[in-house]
């Protein structure tokens, strides 16, 4: 069945994104925030991130080309980029930003240039993978499957009031109910399907 094949692809892609360190738990948090009132939330955040990043990367390229280099400006841009990549869970980009800021503080132009190159590579990698992931989700929806995520926090909120554990969501892989605790372990798919 088409949906199952697509879901399997989605599982593999998602797992590799997390295992290879492209994404961290923050991305999972974003997926959990998506709900019926905002079903394209993750897509919108990814789009914003892509636009914002392209802008910052262009500025950084310019800033490192002029003489003399304004390292404070460079640092400010990298700080911004670190912040936004951290908000989306782009872990590897965040790590390069840390190195980049160290080079900027040391006013090491060559180091900055290399860091910029690395960041560009990482950005394009994660952008492509995220686009593939979102596209797969759309295809799954179109083929009649379900999107993972959504309503989880509201249920958690209600659960707080009622003080009981509630089902967080259905796994995208096999549509089984899972508890909040299991979802919070950062597993994206249930153990029998993963």
């Amino acid at each position: 069945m088409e949906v199952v094949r697509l879901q399997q692809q989605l599982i593999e892609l998602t797992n590799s994104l997390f295992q290879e360190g492209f994404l961290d738990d923050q991305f999972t948090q974003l997926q959990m925030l998506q709900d019926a009132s905002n079903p394209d939330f993750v897509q919108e955040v990814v789009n914003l991130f892509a636009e914002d990043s392209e802008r910052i990367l262009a500025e950084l390229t310019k800033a490192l080309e002029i003489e003399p280099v304004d390292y404070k400006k460079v640092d400010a841009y990298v700080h911004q980029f670190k912040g936004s990549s951290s908000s989306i869970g782009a872990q590897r980009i965040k790590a390069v930003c840390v190195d980049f800021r160290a080079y900027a503080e040391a006013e090491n132009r060559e180091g900055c240039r290399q860091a910029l190159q690395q960041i560009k590579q990482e950005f394009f990698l994660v952008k492509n993978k995220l686009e593939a992931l979102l596209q797969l989700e759309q295809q799954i929806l179109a083929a009649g499957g379900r999107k993972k995520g959504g309503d989880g926090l509201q249920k958690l909120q209600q659960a707080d009031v009622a003080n009981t554990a509630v089902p967080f969501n259905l796994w995208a892989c096999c549509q089984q109910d899972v508890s909040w605790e299991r979802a919070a372990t950062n597993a994206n798919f249930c153990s029998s399907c993963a």
Partner: protein
Amino acid sequence: MARNEGSSACKSKSGSGSMPESLACYPAEVHLLAVDDSLINQKVIKKLLRISAYKVTAVDSRRRALEILGLSGEAFTSVSANAFDINLIITDYCMPGMSGYDLLKKVKESSVLKEILVVIMSSENVPNRIRCLDEGAEDFLLKPVKPTDVKRLRGHVQPQSTARCDDEPEVASSKRKSPSEGLQGQCSERRPRFSRAFMS
């Protein structure tokens, strides 16, 4: 969230002039102002807060935040100050121009606005936290902000009681002394990092 029967979420604030926008009937009648120059962070924070049933207004600069608070331009009057009835400001620490710390100071220096809770978000921990808490910040959150942080915010902002409709700062502060919430920093497990009581 528990609904407050008799709350005046649907009435306009008495005595505070015309409301620029009508408040929907939010159960908690809590209005948060989020300040962050990053559109991505704004979007995520807005979503995080709205999912907890808060009304959220997001702006991208201190200047805009001050306009909303009624603090910019000519000397504000008590009518314009806090016309949007903001209960809590959650602001990024580091921003071009005026920083979150400066905004915090401005709010705390204002006799009308100082009751508004201010929460700072920052990607850096010490020494920013100490500085902000000393200046009267209610809490200090490390970015990226998580759902558990938002849950903590709930502990800071009591759902509005009917008394809040009178729009008096004294009522707001007496509301905050409610023992169940321990908003004066007694609830150590909720806010282990809170270094001083909110009410100085």
